[in-house]
């Protein structure tokens, strides 16, 4: 499924470059990594930061101009000069003020827009990177993580990181310039008044940092509790048939209530922390304003400063109020970005357990022989427990291998090793002598197809589901595959035929129809090795026979492995392996195994001979 189209290829490599960029900087601190991602958009970042400086400069001009206007209005600056002159001065100040306002607006717009734009670009890149990573992370990773948790990372945590540039990084510049220069201007105008006006800043800074740290801790906690709630809801809805079958609605409501109350309590607590913080911040701001008014008022009376100066101080404070309140938000944004980022980059940094070797080559099929050499395997979650132990067998092109065995004996595991969904922990698997670990995954998986035991169907049309592995397939091919899988006639009987959307995971199909759909999907790929993992269990024997005879046409080109419990599904196989406890305990043809009189024979007797005491076998 390569994309040879040159335009597409260019697009693809650009997108992959984004993915690469997002993954850069493993080992560096999270905030550094996000910052570097932002700086990869140099012009936009520069525009955002540059505009920030300019916007704050104009912002700072406004109180001064206002103060000047107040003084001019009182005729203070130009003493006893003529009213006309004073009016001209007022007009000039007014025009300056208008200009400053307009420019402040324009540059604020530029600042906001570009810092958001950088954020959106980062979000886009991270989304691509997550998507790409999730698609490639091996089964062993997905086995160990709940899908809801992954979704939280790619939706919520990604937001936290995306917002970093605009709400934390750029705001840091904005606030330091505004507060810094504002402080300088005020202090240089009047030391005492300036200090008083700024007295609320350290308090608010301290207060908000302390609070934000607490909020951050509770936020993590809350997110965990919400995840539990999400899981309860999601599994309830996904397993709704089980819930109904056991009349377990009350039980489920109890589970929901418990999780919900747990989260709600914490949410209330968070409101408390947040509110105490903001109210105290506002109060300290106004208290400082009161002080300025008092001391400044005295100074005005004693003629030390003018009313205009006082007005400009007060305006300064109003202007500073907003950024100082934002200080808290900013600290929060930093905290959020670093915790969310830790999870997100943690995902992006994960090693992919099963990936291409540097020297990997495409598979070259000559004989079409599959061989298991002393294969042992243990799942990473239980490394000391071998699920497969010293499995040896060989299958040539055109051969069919049957596999039987009790539940949990390792049949599906064996099937999953061939397309390298997991890597063997001992021994090797080869196709025509090439170790599958040395074959490029893409080419391996094109040649080895497993019809999985519980296959996942997509919520889309039947046609799209069949063509899933070959999206550009011709309609005839789709119809042919579906015919071979004995699905065609059924589909044609549906009101919108191949355009019918199958419900989630195929709920609107019967068990056998779902299995036939996944067989048809696999048939589209024309593989060298084809594995049916118990994929006809819900199909009646008659239909299954039809499927098998339709497939006999292709069987000579490939190795077919059939895992089944119904012996009629595999008794015609060239060789049958009986697996128990991860080991091949019997193998041979149907006749040989019957003659051996062992476990296979016991199965056969149970399934075939009506009234025998096969149990004693």
């Amino acid at each position, binding site marked *: 499924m390569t*994309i040879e189209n040159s335009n597409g290829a260019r697009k693809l490599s650009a997108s992959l470059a984004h993915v690469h960029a997002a993954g850069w900087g493993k080992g560096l601190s999270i905030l550094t990594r996000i910052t570097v991602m932002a700086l990869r958009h140099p012009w936009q970042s520069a525009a955002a930061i540059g505009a920030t400086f300019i916007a704050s400069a104009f912002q700072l001009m406004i109180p001064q101009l206002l103060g000047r206007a107040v003084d001019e209005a009182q*005729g203070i600056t130009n003493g006893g000069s003529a009213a006309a002159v004073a009016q001209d001065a007022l007009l000039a100040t007014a025009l300056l003020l208008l200009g400053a306002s307009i420019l402040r607006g324009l540059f604020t717009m530029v600042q906001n827009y570009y810092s958001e734009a950088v954020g959106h670009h980062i979000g886009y890149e991270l989304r691509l990177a997550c998507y790409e990573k999730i698609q490639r992370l091996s089964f062993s990773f997905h086995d160990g993580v709940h899908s809801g948790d992954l979704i939280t990372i790619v939706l919520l945590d990604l937001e936290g990181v995306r917002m970093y540039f605009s709400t934390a990084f750029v705001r840091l510049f904005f606030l330091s310039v505004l507060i810094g220069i504002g402080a300088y201007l005020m202090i240089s105008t009047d030391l005492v008044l300036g200090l008083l006006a700024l007295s609320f800043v350290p308090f608010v800074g301290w207060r908000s940092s302390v609070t934000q740290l607490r909020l951050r801790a509770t936020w993590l906690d809350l997110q965990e509790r919400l995840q539990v709630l999400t899981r309860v809801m999601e599994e309830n809805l*996904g397993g709704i048939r089980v819930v109904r079958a056991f009349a377990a609605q009350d039980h489920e409501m109890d589970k929901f209530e418990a999780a919900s109350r747990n989260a709600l309590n914490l949410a209330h607590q968070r409101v408390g922390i947040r509110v105490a913080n903001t*109210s105290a911040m506002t109060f300290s701001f106004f208290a400082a304003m009161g002080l300025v008014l008092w001391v400044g008022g005295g100074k005005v009376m004693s003629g030390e400063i003018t009313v205009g100066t006082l007005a400009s101080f007060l305006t300064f404070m109003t202007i500073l109020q907003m950024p100082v309140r934002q200080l808290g938000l900013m600290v929060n944004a930093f905290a959020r970005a670093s915790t969310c980022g830790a999870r997100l980059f943690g995902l992006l940094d994960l090693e992919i357990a099963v990936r291409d070797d540097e020297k990997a080559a495409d598979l070259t099929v000559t004989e079409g022989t599959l061989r298991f050499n002393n294969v042992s395997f243990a799942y990473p979650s239980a490394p000391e427990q071998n699920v497969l132990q010293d499995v040896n067998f060989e299958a040539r092109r055109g051969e069919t291998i049957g596999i039987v065995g009790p*539940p949990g004996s390792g049949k599906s595991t064996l099937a999953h090793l061939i397309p390298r969904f997991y890597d063997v922990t001992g021994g090797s698997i080869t196709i025509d002598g090439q170790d599958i670990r040395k074959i490029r995954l893409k080419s391996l998986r094109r040649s080895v197809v497993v019809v999985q035991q519980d296959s996942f169907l997509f919520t889309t049309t039947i046609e799209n589901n069949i063509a899933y592995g070959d999206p550009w397939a011709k309609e005839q091919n789709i119809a042919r595959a579906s015919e071979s899988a004995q699905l065609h006639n059924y589909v044609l009987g549906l009101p919108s035929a191949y355009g019918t959307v199958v419900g989630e995971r195929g709920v609107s199909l019967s068990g056998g129809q779902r299995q036939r759909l996944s067989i048809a999907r696999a048939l589209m790929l024309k593989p060298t090795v084809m594995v049916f993992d118990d994929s006809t269990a819900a199909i009646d024997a008659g239909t299954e026979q039809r499927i098998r005879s339709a497939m006999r046409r292709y069987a000579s080109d490939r190795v077919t492995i059939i895992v089944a419990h119904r012996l009629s599904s595999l008794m015609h196989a060239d060789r049958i392996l009986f697996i128990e406890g991860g080991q091949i305990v019997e193998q041979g043809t149907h006749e040989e195994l019957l003659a051996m009189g062992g476990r296979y024979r016991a199965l056969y007797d149970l399934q075939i001979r009506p009234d025998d005491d096969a149990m004693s076998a």
Partner: protein
Amino acid sequence: MAEELETERADVREDGRRPPRAVVGSHRIEEEIFGKVFDKNIVSRIWAFVDPYKTKVMWAVVAVLIFTAMQLLIPLIIRYAIDHGMQTGGNHSALVYAIGAFLAAISVNFAASYAQETLVGNVAEDVLFDIRKAMFSHLQRVSLSFMDKTEVGRLMSRLQGDVNSMQEFLETSVLSVGDITLLIGIVVVMLYLDFGLGLLTLSALPVLFIVRIFWLPRARKSFMAAHETNSITSGALAEAIHGVRAVQSMNRQPVNFMLFDEKAGANLRTHLTAARYAQVMVPIVDTLTGIAMALVIVVGGARVLGRALDVGVMVAFLFYIQRFFDPIRSLTLQYSVMQRAMASGQRLTDVLDVKVDIKDAPNAKVLPADMDGSVEFRDVVFGYNPKHPVLKNVSFKVNPGETVALVGPTGSGKSSCMSLIHRFYDVQQGQVLVGGHDVRDLTQDSLGRQIAMVLQEPFLFTGSVFENIRYQRTDATREQVIEAAKAVGAHDFIMRLPDGYDSILGQRGGNLSLGQRQLISFARALVADAKILVLDEATANIDSYTEMLIQKALVKLLEGRTGLVIAHRLATIREADRIIVLQNGELVESGNHAELMRNEKLYAKLYNLNYASFDDIPDQLVEEAASTSSRT
């Protein structure tokens, strides 16, 4: 194959056939349409959830009003201080007085803002959880036919995203009350302080409104588009996570990545556009602020010069102007929150309004635990879509204590029969009776407690093995659980798990083999201790030997219970008291194994296919047997 692909793709491009969508294919665009800003029905529905907290909300509004009043008062105090306390040679006590008033005002302000934010914050959280609970509990009752059609992801986004935007809405609507009063208050105070100057300042307003008239529809469209592409992208991501095993085994990563890139790229573009629209208002508002201030300076300043206006009034005006545009700006923001909330509210009420098709009749009886356990179908006609019946005139009776098997080709309606016994769906014609009562006359709860099912899909919950087996029977003891596990032959492998019965299962039991999952769901049905046991392919993924052991163990456990068994492996059901053969939704034969074999109809054919090697089967028989089944 590669060449074949190449050529195929060329003509494929021409006729424009696109690769299958990699997103949740069913994303429906109309769902994201923004609602009206104010929809009386929705507001009244949502209000029902706020109602229990009415008093708190009232206090919150009071606090907001007080808070706003203080916001208005503070510049007035400053004005007073300037005009009366600071004139050279003015009296000092006026300043002290003003400072005292200021102190009082900010204390009240503190209390009011504290009260308001606490109340609003907590009520919003409460309401959020209440709405979610109402929806969740409603979803426990809606019929399965609705659930079949609706994706879990979609419902989850109702339960989370939409509920959250309602919370946002509640918080902002209280704030909007404050903003609107502040706006009105500022206008009144300005006009009161100086009517002429006030009017002049307000003259900037109409300009703002005109600009907004042009801005609004466009901005709204762009916000809407951003919201929509966002949910498309999220849907695609969720699908990649859920279907990752299929994706990898079908090698779909590159194609999916390309398709996702398109979606994510579109998402980026719409967000940039939306940001542009949101930001363009900033300079406009700032310009208007500038104009208003300039007017106050020129006109007001001239009058101050002419001693016609106190300088304090001018200062107060300048303060008010800066505060004046804040509420306008935040009202603009709140406007889009409102829109979103209305759309969310619509979707929430849609869920709450899903009709519960299957509910207890007004005088529904409780199915007694000592009922006889019989099951009867009388002329049942049923279809998921009433126009296409899946079961046609099916009649049979299962006597108390009997085990009856249902067999038939795939898609013939076996699982559907089982669903009807449990009343997952209602029949269109005829009757289903359990213990002699029409299932529609029984309470669903009591019916459910008397029927234990092993479903064709073994669904397990995240949690320990123990919790899974015991499931809703929270009073079941460990002994009972172990006994059930032993009966189905699951005990041994459970004990081999790291923590035995307390081992935590992965999502959907993913760290077990399918057969093992089936055994656990089988054990779960046994613990439920019901009169009627329904096994839908309960041993399809289990070898015959294990199955035989299970059957032997079950003999004792199931004594006196009624059993309904579906199996494709006919050996499984050979021992059944009676076998019912379904084909195409019709009952074609019934009897015990020997009788049916003598009949030499469908059952006998299927049975023969079941054991013969297919090389031995005459083609004609294959044709025959299959033509009867593949039509389904």
